[in-house]
């Protein structure tokens, strides 16, 4: 064999599944097949029964499969076969899944009638109709495509979150973090908003996911949304005040103390999906210096864009013209941003491309809220990933499994702490490190960034000599 072969020869056969694993998979696939049949246009009779079966089977099947897969092995890092599996190594299965997801998002945003949504709100069919009973239960209204989306999203985070917890059952940081991710999605993003919606069906609509703040929620300051909150009684005013407070006060303070992870990998919905459903794809993010360069340009451009769009929108709102020097604010500012960034980038590319570009494309290259918190994290925060002296062996597990594409090893092998705007603090680099080199922690700002040259373990005089000369 030639010296530069790609090791493709080492792709081993798949390890066999046992009966319980097969049972779990079959259940989950049965549950999914109901969703797909509905998507293909079949309007199920007894939607309550079919929807319940579908949700229960997807959740139950995933949990059974995950439990059986992980619980019979000693606890530890479970990344065997990741790069041999066609789903997780950008193989045929990965591309197929990417295409299905992308198609779903395109229909969701622009052609909801193909999902069975009735724009007149009279009689849904197909997939959306399947979710009518649940929507009626919450708010006495038949479902919209967004209700379907929210329900499926929550189901995915919950079931694959449980899988993640079995996988990392030896790691309490991951267990606690994932519990919070699941609860945040289930309560803050799904149940509470839907229940509030039901209780206040007479009020105009406004976003009720308290943590989904501007500028991630780009329409927060749009005239219709501001008006709906103002006309939304006490609840509306509360959401208006909280929305501004969260962005302006709460976020900078908490980010100063613990880094942006409190949001990005603990409570955020986009992050929640990436951490659970996206866990199988985290290794696909690009770690090159050039992609880092693109990242910095893109994320900060989007951030500046939304600041400009929002400023113009507010100008139009308070001048009550809807125009900015004679051009329509809706047509030239809000609408293009919503289409290009809100729908295309965060939705279609952000999730649709999971199996191709990794699970954090949106968070890394686009999210303006992540960009905003990243500035605090980089320049004014107590958070860092500490490198443990000279213990790094440059193996590359940390970099490979960084979903944000940070070349963690580049710092660790120099004995430098990792202080990067984009780090979402998922803690996986620390988990997969075989030598105990990385620790996420909050501490004094002094000494947070520590350039070193000669590493700990070598001659003390030499270390002092070389490392001092750098300053």
């Amino acid at each position, binding site marked *: 064999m030639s010296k530069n072969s790609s090791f493709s*020869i080492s792709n081993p056969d798949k390890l066999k599944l046992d009966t319980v694993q097969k049972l779990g998979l079959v259940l989950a696939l049965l549950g999914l097949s109901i969703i797909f049949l509905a998507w293909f246009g079949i309007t199920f009779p007894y939607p309550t029964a079919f929807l319940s079966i579908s949700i229960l089977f997807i959740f139950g099947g995933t949990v059974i499969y995950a439990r059986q897969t992980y619980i019979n092995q000693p606890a530890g890092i479970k990344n065997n076969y990741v790069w041999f599996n066609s789903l997780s190594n950008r193989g045929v299965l990965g591309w197929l899944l990417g295409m299905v997801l992308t198609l779903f998002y395109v229909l969701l945003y622009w052609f909801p009638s193909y999902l069975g949504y009735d724009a007149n709100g009279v009689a849904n069919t197909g997939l959306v109709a399947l979710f009518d009973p649940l929507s009626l239960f919450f708010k006495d209204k038949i479902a919209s495509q967004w209700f379907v989306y929210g329900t499926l999203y929550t189901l995915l985070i919950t079931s694959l979150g449980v899988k993640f917890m079995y996988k990392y059952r030896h790691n309490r940081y991951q267990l606690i973090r994932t519990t919070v991710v699941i609860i945040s999605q289930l309560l803050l993003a799904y149940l509470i908003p839907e229940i509030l919606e039901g209780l206040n069906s007479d009020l105009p609509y406004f976003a009720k996911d308290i943590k989904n703040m501007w500028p991630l929620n780009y329409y927060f300051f749009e005239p219709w949304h501001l008006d709906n909150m103002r006309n939304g009684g006490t609840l509306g005013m509360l959401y208006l005040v909280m929305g501004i407070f969260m962005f302006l006060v709460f976020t900078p303070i908490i980010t100063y103390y613990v880094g942006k992870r409190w949001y990005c990998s603990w409570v955020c919905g986009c992050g929640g999906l990436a951490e659970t459903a996206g866990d199988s794809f985290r290794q696909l993010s690009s770690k090159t210096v050039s992609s880092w360069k693109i990242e910095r340009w893109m994320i900060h451009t989007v951030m500046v864009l939304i600041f400009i769009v929002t400023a113009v929108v507010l100008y139009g709102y308070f001048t009550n013209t809807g125009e900015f020097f004679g051009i329509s604010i809706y047509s030239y500012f809000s609408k293009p941003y919503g289409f290009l960034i809100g729908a295309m980038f965060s939705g279609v590319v952000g999730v649709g491309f999971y199996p191709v570009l990794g699970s954090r494309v949106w968070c890394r290259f686009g999210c303006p809220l992540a960009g905003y918190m990243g500035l605090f994290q980089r320049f004014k925060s107590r958070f860092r990933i500490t490198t443990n002296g*000279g213990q790094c062996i440059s193996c590359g597990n940390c970099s490979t499994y960084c979903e944000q594409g940070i070349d963690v090893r580049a710092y660790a092998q120099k004995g430098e702490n990792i202080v990067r705007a984009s780090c979402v603090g998922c803690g996986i680099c620390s988990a997969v490190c075989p030598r105990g080199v990385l620790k996420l922690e909050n501490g004094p700002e002094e000494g947070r960034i520590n350039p070193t040259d000669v590493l700990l373990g070598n*001659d003390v005089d030499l270390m002092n000599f070389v490392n001092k000369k750098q300053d």
Partner: protein
Amino acid sequence: MEHIVIIGNGIAGVTAARHIRKKSDKKITIISEESEYFFSRTALMYVYMGHMKFEHTQPYENWFWKKNKINLKQGFVQQVETTLKRLIFKNGEELQYDKLIIATGSKPNKFGWPGQDLKGVQGLYSKQDLENVSLNAPNNKVCKQAVIVGGGLIGIELAEMLRSRGIPVTFLVRESSFWNGVLPKGESELINKHMIEHHIDLRLSSNLKEIISDESGKVKAIVIEETGEVISCDFVGLTAGVSPNINFIKSSEIEINRGVLVNRFLETNIKDVFAIGDCAEQREAIGERRAIEAVWYTGRMMGETVAQTICGNKIEYKPGHWFNSAKFLDIEYQTYGWVFAKPRENEAHFYWEYSNHKICININYNKTTKQFIGINTFGIRMRHEVFDKWLTEEKTIDFVLENLKEANFDPEFFKKYEQEISAAFKNQLITA
């Protein structure tokens, strides 16, 4: 412009090159037969297990070398002519140098076992070795049974690799317990149990007698010395340690013993020829260290040091306090200072093990002065910086146990064991 030639693109050679580049604009050439670019040898196992692709083991992107004007040359040096300052390659090419750094690393030991060169018998050190494992043991149909000979760090890694593909592994360990020439009894036995939990067929106090061939010159079985038992197998891993990879130097004027002999400045007996990393042998061992240290970290530190000397800041190789780490299947191991397999004169060990039998620490200290000498930790991460400081300041074991929390490096929210450890130590003093 002075031409620095480095033979070997492992951690030692590459670290030297990087530091020379930082301090100077000398011409630098790194020679390797094994691979075009530097990769992390310690990560090869993860490629076989599917955690990473081979390119992930390369710490620098391919453009890095050109940008930093470090020439990479693939080739095998056959001869070093020190009088003419010239290298001769296997293909007849020649290369002039002004200063030469030998950083050729190690090769797996073979102790003259009958059948040690059969097909399906190999060590695990180089990129080519990894390719061979992938060929010899691609799955559990081609390789129905594997035998590993030699109970050290590479042996257990190879066992983990093969197990990841469901291949049954029999592990022959010469000693009465895994790696107990280095690890004290408690730690060693903890790893024994962990291997059995991973379904590794561990055979202690077992030596390899011979490897039996089939008609095609491929391994068919092995025989155990002590019992005469014959184990049929399709793969034999020889992991009984490594030794300096210096055959090509034997014909030169450079003085060698087991490795290339160097003084504290990493200079050989020939002017302008240096040796660093696994292949270097100190004329006099430094402190408690061995004369040859085949460890990632010492390779790196020698690279850092020799670069200073070559750039005119002549400096001795003075490694600080000993440290090392490894991972045994799921259990991480770190060590700081010296903990010997058996306490030496006037030393005592304090061993504590958690009830799950996967976490333990062992502290070596002076019985009279109570001075802290070293610590082994399994399943608890500790801060290098803190222990380095405590060793320098010659703290007592009581101080270390009182302040153990400060040294803890486990991820946030992990269970803490300091109180339990401290209580166990006090209890031991009472009962002792």
